[in-house]
């Protein structure tokens, strides 16, 4: 029943989280966040993504809770619409179409039926105005909201540049060196400006603004790291300001605590600073948060605060400035130099994460599995520093070995390190085995392991190619000394070069017998046993950009893509060019499980995908206009089980799935399924009771009540469908009872196992017993027939497997009775 669906490009992660400040739900249990075109809802307690609300056609630029209903959320988007959501159920309630691009959204409790948005001023470029939009109360889902009234002119586009003060009495906006405050009641507009100064660290432009919740006080952040606190700004002349200075770089965001006694600030240093009582003396720090802080938001009860970072991570911090939780999807690094690599062990996508780290990203759960520290040096968050970063990564076939290259750009000579990591089964993580300083004299351009699944460890070979015109072969050397710490280490075995050309790519054939190394315009093929040069291929003009071998039935072909837009296929047997095509290929990615090769090209400002088999010059599948951005990286990720795909055209997607990363670091994939099928919300049932505040009392009572209700539901369930393993109450009880009230595991184990076995084991055991005792009890069968029937109906519904203890507690007599009931012939009932 597979419909011939069309192939769609689906965003599956990594969309930028920093369109707007994150918003805590009223009870601080959920965190709402704008993520690309979607609004994501996370559970604060479990860090899970609970809901993905999609509907906007462009980036979401602002989200705000509805001030009059805390279960509703407004969101604005660049597509010119404001949507009202019920986020608990994930349903869009209303859509208001405004018409022009919306760049920021503010909602106020005091202003009835209207929200404030920032829109571009019509007719002028790069000027924006703050307008209030009247949201009509008419019925219907899609509404027009054309009633706009301009509040402030000449504001900045960033949502951080406008803030509403003290119960919506005034609005303050900053742009460059100017601050303007507009009082709604007095209809008075005050303008202030700071004199422009330029220092080494930057100018003193305003970067963000926050208003005190109870007092007339505005805090502004500046690009030179200063925070100014403005007071008395209702007078045009007699205003005052004081300065707080700790940040050495731009202040990215500011937030007041709910009482206004504390001010939080964050910046490029990735340190969250807590200022007490607006004084310079008392401050606390939370350092090393990982990357620059983009937004800070507070929960309404003041117990939590969360920081959004530039690398798409959300950190939740509690009120006494302790790190609490971290929500991280695909971490955005400044430059994905490693490419997309698939970890053969976890099937996770591996790429650059935090600076100097390798992130293992789980595609199924959109979560980071773990982050491996490769560089192992303290990263200094400061602009303009030249720090070591990871540039290449390669896994051996089974994921037992990991090779990484890190380099630090230096004017004179780069600092290079090749590290080989061994997967330690005990600790379940990679352990550094060998470190090689300066493996090449210049940048390493490519690196690959000999991919041979069935062979022993000692055949493992690593090849690196460098811009110093050589490629090097690294092999494992066994240490003969029994007292040595490590059994094996790596060392260089062979250095090959070709006419002093820079080596650009290297690749092993599927069986590992041949190594292809490209030297600028030439591809050389080497025997991997004797390291003899076998043959060379050349297809001028243009340097070789990518090479790969064909697989399975096409293993006699070598594919290469050149700079000047040629895709060539050479036959290794005849050593001749089989075919070539004119195509500007950026990415050439072979599927590890089939013959298919995906080539992504960049043609007339759009990316296109071509899937072909090397033995045929005609592509199997073409998808034009894959996305507007350049695609630099792609990877085939093997599926756990082959997918059923109806259409012949998409058969190449059966064994593995193609993922690709755009320039803006959004991870996309191709899918035949519709959106609804793909997004199976992890938890449809957001129980209402979950939103109750947790107090010690409720914990005490709630536990009791929950147990009761659980028992109730268990009983009901049993009646409905008798013996279903998944719904086994013992399992349920195990999973749903809080861990601290559960008895010891040894006690629960037999119950659990019993609950799993019950459906078959019980019957068969009893049947055997029945046969044994058949004769002995045959006599009194007939007499109690009538009474037994009614009893049976009760007994059958009684939860035999509900609680293990219950089965244990059944007395001998009861058991006998049960058995008696079972072996009775009830066929006569049907006769009635």
């Amino acid at each position, binding site marked *: 029943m597979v419909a011939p669906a069309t192939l769609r490009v689906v965003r599956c992660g990594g969309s930028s989280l920093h369109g707007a400040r994150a918003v805590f739900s009223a009870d601080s249990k959920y965190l709402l966040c704008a993520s690309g075109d979607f609004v994501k809802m996370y559970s604060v307690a479990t860090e899970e993504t609970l809901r993905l609300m999609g509907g906007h056609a462009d980036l979401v630029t602002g989200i705000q809770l509805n001030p009059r209903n805390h279960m509703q959320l407004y969101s604005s988007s660049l597509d010119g619409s404001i949507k009202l959501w019920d986020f608990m159920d994930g349903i869009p309630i209303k859509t208001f179409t405004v018409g022009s691009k919306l760049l920021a959204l503010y909602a106020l409790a005091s202003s009835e039926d209207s929200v404030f948005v920032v829109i571009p001023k019509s007719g002028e470029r790069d000027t924006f105005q703050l307008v209030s939009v009247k949201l009509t109360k008419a019925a219907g889902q899609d509404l027009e909201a054309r009633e706009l009234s301009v509040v402030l002119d000449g504001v900045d586009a960033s949502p951080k540049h406008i803030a509403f003060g003290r119960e919506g009495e005034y609005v303050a906006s900053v742009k460059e060196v100017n601050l303007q405050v507009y009082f709604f009641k007095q209809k008075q507009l005050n303008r202030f400006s700071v004199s422009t100064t330029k220092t080494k660290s930057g100018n003193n432009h305003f970067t963000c603004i926050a208003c005190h919740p109870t007092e007339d006080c505005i805090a502004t952040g500046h690009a030179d790291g200063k925070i100014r606190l403005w007071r008395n700004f209702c007078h045009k002349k007699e205003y005052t300001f004081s300065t707080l200075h700790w940040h050495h770089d731009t202040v990215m965001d500011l937030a007041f605590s709910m009482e206004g006694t504390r001010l939080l600030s964050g910046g490029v240093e990735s340190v969250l600073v807590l200022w007490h009582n607006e004084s310079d003396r008392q401050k606390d720090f939370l350092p090393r948060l990982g990357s620059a802080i983009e937004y800070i938001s507070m929960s309404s009860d003041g117990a939590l605060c969360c920081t959004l970072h530039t690398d798409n991570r959300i*950190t939740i911090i509690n009120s006494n400035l302790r790190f609490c939780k*971290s929500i991280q999807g695909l971490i955005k690094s400044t430059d994905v130099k490693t490419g997309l690599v698939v970890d053969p062990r976890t099937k996770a996508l591996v790429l650059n994460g935090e600076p100097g780290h390798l992130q293992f990203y789980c595609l199924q759960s959109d979560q980071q599995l773990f982050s491996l520290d490769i560089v192992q*040096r303290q990263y200094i968050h400061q602009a303009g520093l030249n720090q070591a970063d990871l540039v290449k990564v390669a896994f051996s076939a089974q994921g037992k070995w990991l090779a990484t290259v890190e380099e630090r750009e230096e004017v004179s000579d780069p600092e290079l390190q090749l590290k080989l990591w061994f997967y330690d089964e005990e600790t379940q993580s990679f352990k550094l085995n060998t470190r090689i300083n300066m493996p090449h004299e210049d940048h390493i351009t490519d690196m690959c392991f000999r991919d041979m699944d069935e062979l022993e460890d000692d055949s493992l070979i690593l090849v690196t190619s460098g811009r110093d015109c050589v490629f090097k072969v690294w092999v494992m050397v066994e240490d003969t*000394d029994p007292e040595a710490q490590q059994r094996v280490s790596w060392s260089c075995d062979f250095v090959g070069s070709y006419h002093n050309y820079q080596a650009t790519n290297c690749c092993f054939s599927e069986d590992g017998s041949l190594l292809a190394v490209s030297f600028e315009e030439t591809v050389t093929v080497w025997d991997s046993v004797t390291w003899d040069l076998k043959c060379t291929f050349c297809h001028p003009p243009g340097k070789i950009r990518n090479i790969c071998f064909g697989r399975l039935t096409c293993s006699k072909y070598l594919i290469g893509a050149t700079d000047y837009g040629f895709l060539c296929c050479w036959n290794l047997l005849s050593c001749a060019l089989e075919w070539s095509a004119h195509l500007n290929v950026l990415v050439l990615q072979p599927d590890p499980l089939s013959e298919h090769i995906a080539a992504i090209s960049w043609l007339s400002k759009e990316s296109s995908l071509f899937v072909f088999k090397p033995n045929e010059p005609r592509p199997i599948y073409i998808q034009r206009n894959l996305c507007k951005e350049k695609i630099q990286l792609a990877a085939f990720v093997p599926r756990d089980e082959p997918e059923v795909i109806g259409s012949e055209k998409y058969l190449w997607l059966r064994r593995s799935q193609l993922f690709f990363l755009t320039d803006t670091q959004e991870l996309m994939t191709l899918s035949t399924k519709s959106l609804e099928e793909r997004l199976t919300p992890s938890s449809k049932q957001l129980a209402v009771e979950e939103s109750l505040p947790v107090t010690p009392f409720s914990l005490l009572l709630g536990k009791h009540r929950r147990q009761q209700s659980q028992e109730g539901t268990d009983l009901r369930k049993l009646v409905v469908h008798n013996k279903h393993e998944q719904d086994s109450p013992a399992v349920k009880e195990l999973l749903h009872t809080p861990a601290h009230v559960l008895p010891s595991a040894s006690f629960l184990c037999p119950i659990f196992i019993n609950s799993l076995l019950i459906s078959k084991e019980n019957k068969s055991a009893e049947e055997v017993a029945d046969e044994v005792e058949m004769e002995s009890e045959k006599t009194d069968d007939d007499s109690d027939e009538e009474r037994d029937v009614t009893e049976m109906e009760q007994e059958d519904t009684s939860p035999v497997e509900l609680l293990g203890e219950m089965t244990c507690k059944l007395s001998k007599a009861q058991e006998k009775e049960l058995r008696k009931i079972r072996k009775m012939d009830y066929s006569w009932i049907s006769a009635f």
Partner: protein
Amino acid sequence: MATYKPVVVQAFPKLGERITQDTVYWRGYKTPVQIKEFGAVNKIDFSPVPPYNYAVTASSRIHIYGRYSQEPIKTFSRFKDAAYCATYRDDGNLLVAGSEEGSIRLFDVSGKAPLRQFNGHTKAVHVVGFLSDKYRIFSGGDDYSSSLWDIPSATEIVSYSEHTDYVRCGCASKVNADVFVTGSYDHTVKLFDARTKSSVLTIEHGQPVESVLLFPSGGLLVSAGGRYVKVWDVLKGGQLLVSLKNHHKTVTCLCLNSSGQRLLSGSLDRHVKIYSTTSYKVVHSFNYATSILSLALSVSTLEIFLGKEDFCVSKPVKRVLRKYDKLLKSFQSSKALDAVLEPPIRLYTPEVTVAVMQELHRRGTLRSALAGRDEKQINLLLTFVARRVIEPRFTPVLVTVADMITDIYQPVVGQSAIVDRQFLRLQEAIGKEIDYQEELLEVLGMMDTLFATFTKKRATYLEENKSNGLTETIEMNINN
């Protein structure tokens, strides 16, 4: 949220030195505790029973220290003059000590006053010990005699006057309750049997014997004197097995580990060497700030060495953040650089200094850390750079540092004679290195031509015998 990562100090493999289990094990011992004593410590002995307290004999006192505290648990100070060689009995209950005035005193570890006093030696007694039957004591004195005493009656059983110089060391056999050995400054080690009237074996060591040790099996005897440690086979009548010469000053003390597989020797040259008793090769060595007079190794992993005036306890310790790391953590670059330019780090672990310099360079603060220094500090920096810049592992970093220093301090050249001299030395060092490199390149070029002519000759030679198929294949291989 990540924790602070300390500076990575690049480790370079040292040629010839291999990391063995021994080095890993012994490297775990650090010297965190130093306890001062009055006067030289002449003996240290571990109680053989838990909690493994140890008795330290120094000057006129015997201190007993516990395992953890650095304050003595107990002190025996009933000596008029110096006390010597406080030794525990096997059961850890009794302690015997010799003294300068010639008397030997026996203490109960739990008591205060001596239980017994043995008088008989006319001069100082430097060595005492229990025989393995626990009821007798042997002693050796400066009156050249070695005696045997009965504990219950406090009387002398027998006295041997065979040595011709001071008796300064001794040891009782663990397998035979009647056998003990003494070593003397007359260059001999004598083996006595309490059942006979005279010594049963005399071993000529060659130097004044400072320490003597019997293996637990009783078959091997180790003696130390002068710069030598010698191992003798007693059962073969005192045949020399090995003579070890690993110290460059007098070896003062010997010690075996509990399993008998490692032998430790301490010397006045401030080193402790650890030998494997199977191969008699040095597996590890420690160096200390002062000469080592005595050493002991406890059954558990606690170890003690003695210096002249103080002694230090070495035990495995946990790593903490180093001073320079703490300073770097708080972004105090100048102070961090100061910290790694302190003498011990600068002299003994220049790689740490260089690693911190590299880290500062990475952070972009190296220039400001180097700037604003006075004459003395510049002198120090330049000395370091001039000395280390030619080492290939430090060259890349130190060249940058030297560049920066010359940049920063260009205006002040000519104002201080010391700094000017250092600049000249730096120039000289670099000039010399360049000359070396040029010479090396010349040699390399010469060798290349030599190799080239050599292979050519071989090839022509082989071409002449084309009939030989085998040589042809060889030639092929060579050319490839």
